[in-house]
């Protein structure tokens, strides 16, 4: 399989104060379809974690016949281990707004909403100030588009796109049944493009440098670069933009502390990669996909504690509406605790793995469906630590 060496990139945080305005001038001269074609051609996939091709999302939404359409920027970055969107919003907000404007122009939306998690309220004033001048700028440039900010109020599940819509609409952030998908019926029941913060900045940069330059980076399945949030047992914790397609081993040799036993790729809902699989595992859609969270654990860490932490998080942050997720998360948590205390036989872990599989198959949304990722990968690779 194709893989790339670890290469640092400077695209997202590229220090260019006029980037947003020059790009907007450029796209104003392009047709909606040309913009969408360029996006499809770039191979950009959603950087929030799910990895849906961004250009296609835009294309589907543009194709919908509706007077009202919306573009929503998902800034409800709540995945444990992920913090890059905060940094992006703090340092290059106008590139985010530009991405929203490009998407809005391409699909024919007149309003864009940026949904900011409550934990980032301290950014709110700064963002609103920037936004006021940005809205004025695009108005001057003749875009029939404006952006508003909406705040979350402490609910991880609102990062799920349909839950986020519900929240903006003033309701409990409970995911909807799908289909219909947002491209058909999203915010206020209208066709909606919802993209992650980082995805929108990449849209801006692709419009600036062209799809050809973007897709030179990365692999066949994972084009371009990605911003990583790196934390845990590492001397180099922080935010890094890296080309996609490196192996976990490559990553660990740069970021590990020399004693890395596992890397949690993709946050609490992602996969735990143990040392023995570092060499084979490519970071990207062909291997371990990720919203950018890379959490490193060295041999001093108990993977039981790690898993317990994750499960407590999910049990609390499940919206609670569907059975597999609401009850399943609690059962997985209570289950490993019972095994640890010796109240349940270690073979109970097999029952729990089967339950995790059912959650993956039958939960209503991505939250419940992805709890199996950390559960199975940690239980399989660190079974002794769970039991003893």
């Amino acid at each position, binding site marked *: 399989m194709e893989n790339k060496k670890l290469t640092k990139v400077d695209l997202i945080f590229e220090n260019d104060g006029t980037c947003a305005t020059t790009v907007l001038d450029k796209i104003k001269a392009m047709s909606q379809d040309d913009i969408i074609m360029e996006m499809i051609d770039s191979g950009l996939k959603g950087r929030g974690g799910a990895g849906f091709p961004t250009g296609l999302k835009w294309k589907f939404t543009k194709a919908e016949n509706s007077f009202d359409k919306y573009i929503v920027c998902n800034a409800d970055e709540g995945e444990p281990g992920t913090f890059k969107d905060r940094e992006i919003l703090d340092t290059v907000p106008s590139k985010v707004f530009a991405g929203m404007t490009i998407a809005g122009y391409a699909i024919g939306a007149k309003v864009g909403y940026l949904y900011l998690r409550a934990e980032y309220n301290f950014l709110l004033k700064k963002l609103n100030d920037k936004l006021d001048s940005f809205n004025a700028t695009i108005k001057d440039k003749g875009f029939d588009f404006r952006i508003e900010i909406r705040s979350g109020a402490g*609910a991880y*599940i609102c990062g799920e796109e349909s839950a986020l819509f519900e929240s903006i609409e003033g309701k*409990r952030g409970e995911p909807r*049944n799908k*289909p219909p998908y947002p491209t058909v019926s999203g915010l206020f029941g209208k066709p909606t493009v919802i993209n992650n913060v980082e995805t929108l900045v990449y849209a801006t940069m692709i419009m600036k440098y062209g799809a050809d330059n973007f897709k030179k980076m990365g692999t066949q399945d994972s084009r371009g670069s990605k911003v990583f949030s790196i934390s845990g047992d590492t001397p180099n914790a922080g935010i890094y933009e890296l080309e996609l397609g490196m192996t976990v081993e490559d990553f660990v040799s740069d970021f590990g502390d020399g004693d890395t036993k596992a890397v949690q790729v993709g946050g609490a809902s992602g996969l735990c990669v143990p040392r023995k699989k570092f060499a084979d595992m490519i970071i990207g859609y062909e291997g371990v996909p990720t919203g950018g969270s890379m959490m490193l654990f060295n041999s001093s860490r108990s993977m039981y504690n790690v898993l317990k932490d994750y499960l407590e998080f*999910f*049990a*609390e*942050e*499940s*919206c*609670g*509406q*569907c*059975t*597999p997720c*609401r*009850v*399943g*998360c*609690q*059962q997985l948590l*209570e*289950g490993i605790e*019972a095994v640890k205390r010796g109240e*349940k036989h270690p073979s109970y872990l097999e*029952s729990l793995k*089967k*339950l995790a599989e*059912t959650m*993956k*198959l*039958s*939960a*209503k949304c991505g939250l419940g*469906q992805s709890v199996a990722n950390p559960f199975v990968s940690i239980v399989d690779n660190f079974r002794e630590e769970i039991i003893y």
Partner: protein
Amino acid sequence: MAKYEVNLKVNNIPVTVEEGSTILDAAKKLNFRIPTLCQHPDLCVAGNCRVCVVEQKGARALPAACATPVSEGMEIFTNSQKVRTARKHIIELLLSEHNTECTSCYKNGKCELQSLANEYRVNENDFIKLVNKKTYTIDDYSPSIIKDDSKCIRCQRCVRTCTSMQFVSALTVAHKGDHQKISTFFDKPMNAVVCTNCGQCVNRCPTGALVEKNYIDQVWDAINNPNVHVVVQTAPAVRVGLGEDLGLEPGHRVTGKMVAALRRIGFDSVLDTDFTADLTIMEEGTELLVRLKKALVDKDESVALPMTTSCSPGWVKFIEHKFPSLLPNVSTCKSPQQMFGALVKTFYAQKKGLKAENMVSVSIMPCTAKKYEADRPEMRDSGFKDVDYVLTTRELAMMVRQAGINFEDLADEKYDSIMGESTGAAVIFGATGGVMEAALRTAYEIVTGREVPFTNLDIVPVRGFEGIKEAKVLIKDVLPEWGFLEGAELSVAIAHGLANTNKLMAAVQRGEVNYHFIEIMACPGGCLGGGGQPIPTSPEIRAKRMEAIYDEDTHMAIRKSHENPEVTAIYEEFLGKPNGHKSHELLHTHYTKRKGY
């Protein structure tokens, strides 16, 4: 817009359904039953419980059959190994957060979760019992409804019923994750919130989390007490529902069997609420005519019109909470149940030589709100609690079973006299539009001296399941004393279900509509769809009960309230005249403004 057809396969069998149908619909068309819990034919789709998951060829996850629309070429498997495993897990998960003391549960044998557990032969001990790790309190403050969260499976049928169907919103989903629960405003007890006691949530709860407060033991005690005379009255809609809980198909009229069963159970007098339904028509019809006269002749602007009915206690509590400014519009007539209660311990006692303090008055109602109504402090005009115990149709069915009565084989019997005689007009009180029809049959004839101008007395425009119905009746060639009504067009409206009611009353409040008389029933379909009726209740079943009601009307010898000989007699012997002094003392009431949550 024309609907497209969609072709798909369910368990390898091709089927064609309309676009927009769900996988559940398609499977049903092929007679494949997919188990469901949160789904209910009266409610919008939730897709919460996930019991109905199926396998879709080519899809990674298992879609919920109730919430997933069909698409062309779809291949669905309803019973694959994957599906069975997931379903079994889901049922086990639900059981793990459910208080499974089934043998002592009121819903034992009638619980949808229990029957699914039975069907899937689940091993309850597979997962850790979460219910034991949480503290639950049982809310039994309401005289009508008991809410036991330890039995709740969070399907949210109750919340959808309370918010969408009834527009009451006493119930809500609160908190999230492992703390998520069905709650009220600040988790206050059910008797302290906007709950109308309609019991539609109870009728839809798949488990024992929401049940009626039952008074079966108290009634048995009374029956077995040789020193008390136990009188029972039966509401119109009970006779078209009861059979369903005793082995008969929906739509059976079981009036005669019910009377026979009540005697065998041991009630001392088996009487009919229909008698006071007829009396209600006399009182309420007169009240309407008086209000019209005051408004039209005396130009008295203080008269509140339109006048609304008052026989549905869920509706009465609804307006007390939601439209208190319209309370003067509500007829001051007590409901038939309470008129009956007040008369039984006065008039009936007198006639039969009984002492009111030695009487216990029981009513069988299709309704849980009637339990609350009987408890209202205003309802003691006999000097005692007018109605001591209210049992739902379901509770009566339970008593019939407990008594070991083979219901299906009972020969029909007749109600006792007095207060057992009734008319077709009274029977149709059990259906939406029925009170209106009965009132029109009588009022029109009083005013004109002629029968209502509808074939066979069937006032078809006020019948049926349309949410809000309207009708106009031209009044001409009136009798001399009603001259002020000559040429008037009486304008009426009917709403059933509280969501429809809310729409109608909001329009009244805004002054957008001009009616003289409005009939409201809190429950969909009227009392026949009451919260105390057999479970399940669905649009289909309500339609069958309605057919039975009108069938009963057609078969009655007398079909107009004012022709009920016992009604005539009670005015001559006891009450005097409609809306007279005695009537006001015993048969009329007043209302209270209540909090908005």
